[in-house]
């Protein structure tokens, strides 16, 4: 959240008079939804480093991102990379199938399964049915039949791998780094840093749902690390009563009284600032108080999904017990991007290792959890589309790793060697699949991609060049930048 546009004009020409006229006397509100930062193309300038000016580096395809993350590791095998061969060879050891060689071809950068978990070599059959959807004929597991109906809007990437075999991979998905390296900027914070706000009354980067737990990255999964806290995700509860820490004044202070307090504050700050007309922090602070005051109303307003029509509410599944909670998050996500928020990060099943971590009873686990998210996510895609928002909004669906083709009792183990994700909306060629795993879904086999390639794709669609965002003294690795997946772009 930046209270001021990052103009690079030096302040030495500012006089007392211009200070007063620039910042206005007293407390002035800003209109909700004011589009202060219009997208435009930054001048190509290869000279010395400078901080981003809020404009994309090249023509963007997307303005906002909704970044959905399912904590615990969703089975790729039974969602968007269905493997019927698991039914054919169910109960057999991989060594006794025609695919015995796939296990041996360990990719050199891939972390193996946790040795403490033993070998998961006896194949577990698919725990749900599957069918093909749409013109594209995308095969989707029955757990995600509502999302399946949006098949022609999705571009599925089936060849992802990651570098941690435990839930620290949740952090890896957000930052690209191994959890032992702790805090690094998340994708959302790079977007906030690179592009800034489209609405001065709301944060640029909002987090909904219960994020990753302390075991597995915690606050780092929506932090900004060295970019600075103003670019970190602002956690909101999808609850208009208590959406943000310190958002509500103490009960003892009424709204009118607070407006009065801030009125006096504005006047006093102006008087005191006359001796320091070039003080950027003072100017920023005056604006930050204005925005904070706006947020006290703009955020609860944004969260008033009660005002949506019954049809819309039903589309997101708000009328169903099992998917009401996540449906509300998805609906709030739409309301946020509608109001110009850049990056909305949605967590499902957060805290601890993550709800999707189906080491046993994967059938009941994934049946229950998918019922919580399938309708809301499909509702979000359909709603964005019917409102014309999908052409400017990129929706990404991801998780930390896949699940093992081999059985762990009635469940599946962590599987960092292969998993899948999908993208939909702005700039995405719908109805495509990219990359492939082997026939039993053990390894990402064709067109292997690391998680930062998804980041690179998102940044590209937003018109950002991650190398141009780099900060001197904060050298990023080649791996951090990733490479965009050209084949799924429209």
């Amino acid at each position, binding site marked *: 959240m930046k209270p001021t546009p990052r103009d690079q004009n030096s*302040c030495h020409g500012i006089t007392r008079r211009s200070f007063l006229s620039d910042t206005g006397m007293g407390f002035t509100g800003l209109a909700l939804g004011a589009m202060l930062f219009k997208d435009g193309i930054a001048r190509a300038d290869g000279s010395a480093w400078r901080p981003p000016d809020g404009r994309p580096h090249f023509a963007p395809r997307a303005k906002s991102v909704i970044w959905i993350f399912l904590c615990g590791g969703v089975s790729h095998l039974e969602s968007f990379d269905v493997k019927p061969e698991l039914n054919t060879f169910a109960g057999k050891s991989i060594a006794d199938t025609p695919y015995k060689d796939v296990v041996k071809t360990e990719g050199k950068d891939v972390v193996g399964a946790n040795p403490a978990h033993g070998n998961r070599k006896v194949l577990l059959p698919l725990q749900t049915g599957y069918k093909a959807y749409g013109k594209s004929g995308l095969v989707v597991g029955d757990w995600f039949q509502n999302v399946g109906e949006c098949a022609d809007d999705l571009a599925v990437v089936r060849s992802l791998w990651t570098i941690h075999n435990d839930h620290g991979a949740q952090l890896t998905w957000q930052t690209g780094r191994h959890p032992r390296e702790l805090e690094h900027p998340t994708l959302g914070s790079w977007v906030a840093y690179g592009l800034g706000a489209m609405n001065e009354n709301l944060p640029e980067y909002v987090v909904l749902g219960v994020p990753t737990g302390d*075991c597995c990255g*915690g606050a780092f999964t929506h932090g900004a690390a060295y970019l600075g806290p103003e670019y970190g995700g602002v956690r909101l509860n999808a609850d208009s009563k208590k959406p943000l820490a310190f958002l509500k004044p103490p009960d003892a202070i009424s709204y009118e009284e607070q407006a009065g*307090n*801030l009125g006096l504050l504005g006047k006093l700050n102006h008087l005191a600032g006359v001796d320091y007309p070039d003080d950027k922090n*003072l100017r920023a602070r*005056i604006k930050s108080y204005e925005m904070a005051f706006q947020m006290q109303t703009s955020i609860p307003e944004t969260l008033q999904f009660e005002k949506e029509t019954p049809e819309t509410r039903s589309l997101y599944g708000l009328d169903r017990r099992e998917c009401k909670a996540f449906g509300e998050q998805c609906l709030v996500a739409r309301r946020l991007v509608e109001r110009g928020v850049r990056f909305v990060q949605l967590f499902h099943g957060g805290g601890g290792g993550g709800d999707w971590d189906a080491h046993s009873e994967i059938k009941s686990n994934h049946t229950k959890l998918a019922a919580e998210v399938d309708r809301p996510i499909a509702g979000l895609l359909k709603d964005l589309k019917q409102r014309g928002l999908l052409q400017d909004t990129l929706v990404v669906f991801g998780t930390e790793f896949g699940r093992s083709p081999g059985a762990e009792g009635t469940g599946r183990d962590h599987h960092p060697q292969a998993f899948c994700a999908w993208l939909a909306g702005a700039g995405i060629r719908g109805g495509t699949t990219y990359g492939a795993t082997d026939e039993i879904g053990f390894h990402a086999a064709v067109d292997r991609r690391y998680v930062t390639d998804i980041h690179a794709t998102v940044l590209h669609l937003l018109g950002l060049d991650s190398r141009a965002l780099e900060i001197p003294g904060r050298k990023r690795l080649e791996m951090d930048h990733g490479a965009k997946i050209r084949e799924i772009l429209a």
Partner: protein
Amino acid sequence: MTTSHRRRRALLVHFLTGVALALHAAASGAAAVWQPFAPVARPAVPILADSQADSPTGGFQARNPIDAFIAAEQHKRGLKPRPEAPKEILLRRVYLDLIGLPPTTQEQAAFEEDRSTDAYERVVDRLLSDPRHGERWARHWMDVWRYSDWAGWSGGNQIRDSKPHIWKWRDWIVESLNADKGYDRMIVEMLAADEATPEDAQSLRATGFLVRNYKMLSREQWLEDTLKHTSQAFLGVTLGCAKCHDHVYDPISQADYYQMRAIFEPHWVRTDPVPGDTNVLKAGLVRVFDTDTNPPTYFLNRGDERKPDTNRLMVPNVPRALGGALEIQPVSLPASASRPDRRDFFHRDTLAAADAVLAEARGKLSAARKSQASDGELKELELSLALTEARRGALATLFEVEALEDAGKRGSEAWAAAAQNTVLRQRATAVAEARLTLHKSRLAEAEEQRKVDAERAKLVSGTNAPQTAVTTNNDDGAAKRRTEDEKLSKSLAAASSHRAAAVKALAEAEAQSKTAPGTNYLPRTAEQYPANSTGRRLAFARWIANTNNPLTARVAANQIWLKHFGQAIVPSPNDFGRNGKPPSHPELLDWLASELMRPTSGAQPGEPWSMKRLHRLIVTSRAYRMASTPDENNARIDPDNTYLWRMNSRRMEAEAVRDSLLYVSGGLDLERGGPEIDNNLGLTSKRRSLYMRQAAEKEVEFLKIFDGPTVTECYARRPTVVPQQALAMANSELTLNAARSLVKALSNGGTAAAAEDFPRDAFQRVLGRKPSPEELRLCREFIEVRKGSASGSQAQEALAIVLFNHNDFVTVR
């Protein structure tokens, strides 16, 4: 690529960066390229033109040599320094800087009235000897030295980063700064107190600097962090890159990295008992020690721990480019260090704990005798007491044996007698224990028997009862009863066999008692640590804390300058290498470094490595006393104030914001030291912020919002201005409670005069200055208007809240 290729490429990069730096130096008018890796040579203090009004320096009054260096750079650029700040601004600045709290109204008034020429200097001396100074500056050094409380999860059962009790290192920092312990001494204690002063529990706390790097999940990462941050904190060298390849910018090879790693390879962490509590989970001294006298350190190809080059065994050493040599002397440790459980206090505390158990057993027995306890219960308590007494006796004689052994009298007659005595008592303990076990097993057996009898009785009565239904094999009730009966029989059989085993065990223990005792007593099971330490870390610490080390004093002086001015002389305080940023005042920095190591200026020569001395020198300079007001002409020449033509306006650090809120409203609890306070109490605890828990994912939300330190790395704070800060200040209960306390404190029993004065007094107290007539008018008007809808004290509270949110409250001018 071959080694020679690599070297040639590295040389080329060196050459090119050297050229770039030289060009930069030429452009910025510096006389010569500054050489941070060359020893510090004390530069001559520039001679200034006299201080006439028409002189190029605009009548600059140098107060000490610092000003001469600053003025020389300004003169070159045609900058005219701002005048000295008004007294009330200067006093608030120096208070917040030196003790982290603003002056009280009385202190402001006293300073205002003091017209003596050394009024300011006397304030500085008083603040430097104020114990709150150590707390303030401890937090700065905690940033640089990466202080972290323990982190982990599962309710604290899994310690993943740092360790519990590490707050003792924080207290050591506070105490050391207050005592003005030499910086060289502090370095030695932090890196190697266990080798330098192994019996001094106070200085052992300092090794928390190393303990902090503990990482349960990866020893590799633990050592990597240790090397990386030790070199950045003390030497301003980014050694971390050399883990995988030769440093691209600085003359540090990958081999240098592993030689330095060998210095730390033997060390590990442990928690020693402390007097007063034998349970190290509850109270302990967490510290480092060498667990191995010569563990191998191999060169890791590309820094990959899976690819050690076992042909390249690395010898501990320091990078050659930094000069000096590592002089390693193995250290032989006193018994108290290798056997912490053998120290007097531990014996005392263990006996005291045994006495407490004994007293409890006696109390239970006498209480039972007065009550209606059964014979079985009474006997169990009697046997328990007997066992407790036997244990206490055996412990006492065991300690006698240990004392004789520690005195080198193993094998002596006295020892033999004590050892025999111990064996006898240990046998008596075994018998007492066997008796208690037997008694308990008999009681358990009787209980099982009783249950079986009761169940059988039920069965019998069930059979005799009039039959209402035909009993068949399918009868659920009967089947259930049969299973229950089988279960009970099994339990009874198990209890009987336990009893039989106990009978046998007692017989064996008694038989054993009748044999000749001998001297073969059972020693205590306690941790035993090596009796020697490699001395590698001590040698390394002495190499750092050495006046010949080119970087140590420069890096420290730069950090100190950064904290006083909000801007460092070398803007990259953790990187003095070629990838860092060149200094604005290289000669000033060298002079300060030299002054830190070998003080010469001032009336008395002073102690070397004294931080307080350097603080005094800096805050009494004219440069420090300047106003922070703008100047258009200067701003055109030097918009970033690189050459300090004015003081920088700054936002207080998170801790100062919270502490000041509590302090000006009269609520701050000035108790010093002690265990860290739960981070969830950030809004309600009244303690200073440096005592709040600070670890990965365990931070006070309020402090985090105000850019509190990042625990992983914080060589400089990055203050921001974000709306969350406005919300926290406007809406938190911390502010509301502070406002209420302030109104109470200023109400003076609710007199009309106090109410009249409130706006002026509150303004003075919160913002540290008198309001202007216009400001006072607005405040008065505000209260009058608010009184239309609220009580008088509510209106005053509202004004207090506004003042806490005032830009001038969080800003240091």
